[in-house]
């Protein structure tokens, strides 16, 4: 049974919490009693997701945030601090992709993928680190992908963005580790989310993990004893990579 530190209710900010791994992670943290900030671009969906957590007796606050926009991240952080006071845990999960050969990938698609998957992680980490460093505690989970270190066709820009976010995260960890902040890199293989087409989800179902598998791993790692930190975890479907 996973348990929280006694007499303290942490606040967890999950980006990309409208669906998939982000939604599952928000639900998993809410289930162990954390206050959860569910953020994403789709206001209606965030309100539905937060409402379900509240209905189950949990605490959830929907906050609209486009992680690729500095202004939006700053505004979201302001709302979170005003309403919750602190961010103890950031789960950087928001991500987008386009499955396309390199030559067919447009500059617009490149910008969209890199802005969300890499710049977004930069902006959100920057926004929470100020108070985490002041408090000398905090936990950041950065969700990447095995594509950060593996070669796939039709995924060049996504892979580049994930390799970038992994490198960014490793360097941030190196800087803040001595200051009480734990930065964990979560590197999953294929997860059955809407990022994949319906056709592929059906075809490769057995070779995909479920969002809850990643969410449960993140929550377990969060609940590790204070004296240890998981730097990186690679988690894959047993049956094979796509």
């Amino acid at each position: 049974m996973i348990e929280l530190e006694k007499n303290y209710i942490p606040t967890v900010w999950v980006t990309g919490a409208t669906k998939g791994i982000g939604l599952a992670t928000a639900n998993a943290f809410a289930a162990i009693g954390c206050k959860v900030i569910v953020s994403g671009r789709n206001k209606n969906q965030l309100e539905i997701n937060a409402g379900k957590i509240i209905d189950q007796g949990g605490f959830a606050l929907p906050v609209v945030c486009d992680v690729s926009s500095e202004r939006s991240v700053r505004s979201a952080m302001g709302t979170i601090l005003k309403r919750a006071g602190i961010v103890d845990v950031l789960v950087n999960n928001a991500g987008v992709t386009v499955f396309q050969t390199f030559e067919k990938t447009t500059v617009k698609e490149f910008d969209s993928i890199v802005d969300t998957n890499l710049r977004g992680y930069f902006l959100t980490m920057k926004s929470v680190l100020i108070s985490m460093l002041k408090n000398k505690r905090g936990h950041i989970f950065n969700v990447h992908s095995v594509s950060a270190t593996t070669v796939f066709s039709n995924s060049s820009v996504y892979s580049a963005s994930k390799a970038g976010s992994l490198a960014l995260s490793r360097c941030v960890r190196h800087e803040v580790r001595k200051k009480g902040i734990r930065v964990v890199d979560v590197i999953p293989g294929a997860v059955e989310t809407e990022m994949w087409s319906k056709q592929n989800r059906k075809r490769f179902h057995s070779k995909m993990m479920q969002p809850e598998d990643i969410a449960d791993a993140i929550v377990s790692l969060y609940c590790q004893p204070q004296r240890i930190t998981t730097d990186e975890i690679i988690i894959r479907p047993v049956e094979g990579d796509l």
Partner: protein
Amino acid sequence: MPPDLKNSVAIVTGASKGIGRAVTLALAEQGVHVVLAARNSDALHTLENDIRATGNQAFAVTTDVTSEHSVNNLIYESEKKFGKIDILINNAGVGVFEKVIDTSTEEFEEMMNVNLKGAFLCSRAVLPFMMRQKSGNIITIASLAGKNSFSGGAAYSASKWGLIGFARSLMLEAREYNIRVVTICPGSVNTGFAEKERNEPLIIQPEDVASTVLFALSAPDRVNVSEIDIRPTIKPRT
């Protein structure tokens, strides 16, 4: 639902002390039938008795993982005793931390034999059983020294680098048979492994590695925690 470990059978190499001992005790506590393998027969039998005293099943088999004959005997005895093998913990390891110029050929070979060849021999020996039952877990305790180079650690680092390469390849082969291959890379662990026993808070405890083993084993059946790196948390100065 995470898999129930009760009544499954695990072989732990290097079980007499340090991480191996902690993993053995943690598994036994979950109701796993544990086979204890190590060279130190006395320590092994003491641990066997300690576990049995708690009402759990333990079976000590004195083993030198560098010997094919000895490893084959370990697997034979385990299967004879418990009828199956569900989990192998490749943990046996030795380390001599010297600069290359001071490392003897014997020291180099000892590290390669125990740390790398031992994992190969044990994994190869359990595979037929796991392939037949179309399930199993092979968990290898490597080290962050297998991902980072450092002065005074060339031979040790090379053995662990090799071990990680071995386990990554094994994972790709074994998954076809629904066998999970997990590599755990701990940073500094307080095992008495280094000549001077250290007690600083910056050293993680063998029990922390054991809890990581349980974490990997308790993942849903469809999930393979293929690699996990753990390090001591550094406490900030107040």
